[in-house]
């Protein structure tokens, strides 16, 4: 293993003062464990929030009638969804295509009323795909005809419970005002403030009757095997569907504010990294500098015997690199242990539920998972900065004058 004498020398030098080596290694290790865990936490939180939003409402791709995204009026509908559904489902990587009708309206009891987001879904198709069934906290998901599910906050606002009758007033597809009475069959607890306070879900058939929409729908939500296929599938669908009357919107556009928010959170990801690295590097710089000045005489002798300055630089950098590698291995191991432990169990933040609920579908239990990019970035930056901080001491060592250095006491 030790073919180069320098490698052997570097290794031995490190063991000359094991305590110093251990403390330096542990500062790299602790720093890296903290960063790996923190990155895993942030990545896991971001990924969970996105996945919850995709499953909760946006899907990976939405198919709308042309112009609906800009002006979501019920008059802009997908007229013949059946044919489109067939095309969607025949596309590779598409798991589900869910027809929905989405509109705004007023819900009222005898005494109270509130604005609401009214959603008609195919209860059977969505059962195992979207999260609406999971949201049902009270009552049943399979509401009989004329039944609705309403958000927890909305129920509270209206002082209504299961079995109560609500009137829903909407503007129908033909522009007229439509009103109908429905029985509350279940209460939804979505974990998202806006939806809890405004969501009403009913079966697609009831919704079609209420909105006089016939067979048409306002959107088809497409769920893919994985978010990474979004661009590919969108491109393929644009070729196969009639883009004169339809438009395709990806989750990246639908959840743009969320991506923006996560972009802002990147500051909180990288600032601590930079602070830690600078502080750790200063510690390493000091340690290496001292270990060099301690060996002034020895290095002088080496140079007097003919070791070239570049080799001295190499030796010092090699010593630090060994410490760096040890620190990275230990740090990654420690970080991985923490991530595995908490990745399985999750970290409970339900104490701050109210606050978290303001971000749509923010999880209250966070399962840290580090993204490969974050992992390589953290380890790479830590290792490189450790070696870089030995540059100055190595340069000082190479500049020693052998004659003076030998006489250094």
């Amino acid at each position, binding site marked *: 293993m030790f073919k180069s004498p320098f490698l052997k020398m570097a290794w031995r030098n490190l063991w000359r003062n094991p305590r110093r080596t251990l403390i330096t290694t542990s500062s790299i290790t602790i720093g890296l464990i*903290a960063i790996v865990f*923190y990155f895993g936490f942030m990545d896991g939180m971001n990924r969970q929030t996105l996945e919850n939003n995709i499953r909760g409402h946006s899907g990976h791709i939405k198919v709308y009638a042309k112009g609906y995204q800009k002006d*979501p009026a019920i008059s802009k509908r997908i007229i013949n969804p059946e044919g489109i559904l067939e095309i969607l489902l025949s596309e590779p990587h598409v798991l589900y295509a869910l027809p929905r009708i989405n509109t705004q309206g007023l819900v009222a009891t005898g005494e109270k009323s509130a*604005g609401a987001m009214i959603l008609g879904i195919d209860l059977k198709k969505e059962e195992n795909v979207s999260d609406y069934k999971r949201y049902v906290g009270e009552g049943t998901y399979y509401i009989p005809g004329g039944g609705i599910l309403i958000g927890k906050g909305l129920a509270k606002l209206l002082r209504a419970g299961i079995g109560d009758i609500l009137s829903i007033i909407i503007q129908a597809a033909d522009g007229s005002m439509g009103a109908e009475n429905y029985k509350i069959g279940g209460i939804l607890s979505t974990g998202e403030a806006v939806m809890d306070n405004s969501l009403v879900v009913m079966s697609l058939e009831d919704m079609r009757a209420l909105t006089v929409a016939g067979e048409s729908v306002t959107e088809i939500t497409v769920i893919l095997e994985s978010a990474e296929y979004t661009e590919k599938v969108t491109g393929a669908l644009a070729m196969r569907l009639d883009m004169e009357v339809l438009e395709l919107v990806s989750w990246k556009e639908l959840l743009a504010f969320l991506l923006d928010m996560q972009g802002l959170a990147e500051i909180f990801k990288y600032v601590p990294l930079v*602070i830690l690295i600078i502080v750790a590097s*200063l510690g390493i710089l*000091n340690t290496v500098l001292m270990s060099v000045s301690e060996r002034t005489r020895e290095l002088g002798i080496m140079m007097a015997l003919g070791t070239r300055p570049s080799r001295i630089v190499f030796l010092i950098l090699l010593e630090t690199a060994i410490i760096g590698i040890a620190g990275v291995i230990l740090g990654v191991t420690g970080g991985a242990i923490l991530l595995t432990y908490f990745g399985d169990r999750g970290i409970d933040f339900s104490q701050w539920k109210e606050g978290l*609920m303001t971000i749509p579908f923010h999880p209250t239990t966070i399962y840290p998972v580090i993204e490969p990019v974050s992992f390589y970035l953290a380890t790479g930056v830590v290792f490189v900065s450790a070696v870089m901080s030995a540059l100055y001491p190595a340069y000082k060592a190479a500049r020693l004058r052998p004659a003076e250095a030998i006489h250094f006491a």
Partner: protein
Amino acid sequence: MSIFLKMAWRNIRRNLRRTLITLSAITFGLAAMIIFFGFTDGFHAQWVENTVKAYTGHIQIYRSGYRDDPQLNRSIADAAEIIKELKTEPAVDTYAERVEVQGLISTAENSYGVLIRGIDTGEEVKITGIKERIIKGEYLNEDKGRGVLIGHRLAEKLNAEIGDKIVLMVQAADGSLTAELFRLQGTFRIGATELDSSFAIVTLKDAQALSLLGDRVTEIAVMLKNPVDVLPVSKRLKERLVSSGYEVYTWEELMPALQEMIDLDNIFMYLILLVVLVVVSLGILNTMLMSIMERTREFGIMMAVGTSPRNVILLVMLESFFIGIIGIISGAGIGIGINRIISIKGFDLSRWGGATEFFAILNPVIYPETDIINVLWSCAIVFLTALIVSVYPAVRAARLRPVEAMHYV
């Protein structure tokens, strides 16, 4: 004692470069902490201020029971009675009577659920600054009547232009559904997604007429000259108003989610600072250990001529004490200085516009705040850390055996 002070001072100047590097680690760590704190505090302050202005004011007063169950028949009949009390509070800057009611806004082709707010056109400007936020059309005019202001996002969704007919429908105080025709008088851009997409603003008179409230209002929003007075002022108002059948809430009580988000943010920050602190202290520990080892012989001689182990400990800790003091002075100086410099121009977050709009951060430029309490305790913690990590090296030095130590090369 004084001789040790002198010795400690000389010792830290003996290897000036080493001392400077250790100092720079402390300085950098502390300055980073202060800047990070300043930035987050500034962000939170801005967030609270904007949200308070746009939504609740610092304090809101309702009729008893309204907050729990906002029915229009629980409205304030005699606002003058409350205003009389508000006028006796010198800390109150301004107050505005409001009517808030959920309803449906419709154009010929589209309708949405909205929160309709009837405002005192004069006073409201001082709280929300809505007049300056008008981007199209003009502000409400009491004489003209039947004008409505809506957010630019809602206008886009409704596809409505200035002058268009708008129908507002609400459930009135007597339980009946009432609708009135309004004209779109202006659109505003507050810079908060929720406000810009789901608020409709009309004059107080029109809102009272629409919801059959007579001259009653649903709430009075109070702004204070200085937000720190919220607790004492609300306490005094509660004492005087609760017995007359009113309830008084602070913004923290009305928006618990906001305070929770801020608490959660702070917890993250403390964790990050803890890790930074650990890495800084490992650096100091290493430096102190090495500087002791270097002086093994010297300590041996000191002890041989009669210095007690206790005094050796004192000497080593005094060195750390000096480094700690200088470190916190320079760290705090640089940290506060940089905060001041950044806060002249502010730090612009508009790159992440989607996120700032979502969080209702109306002015995306953050001005870091230097909270003297935070600075003091950051300094205290850094200083204590420097002292604590020197205990181990000090004890090691004190445990040296003079005879062996004197022969150490």
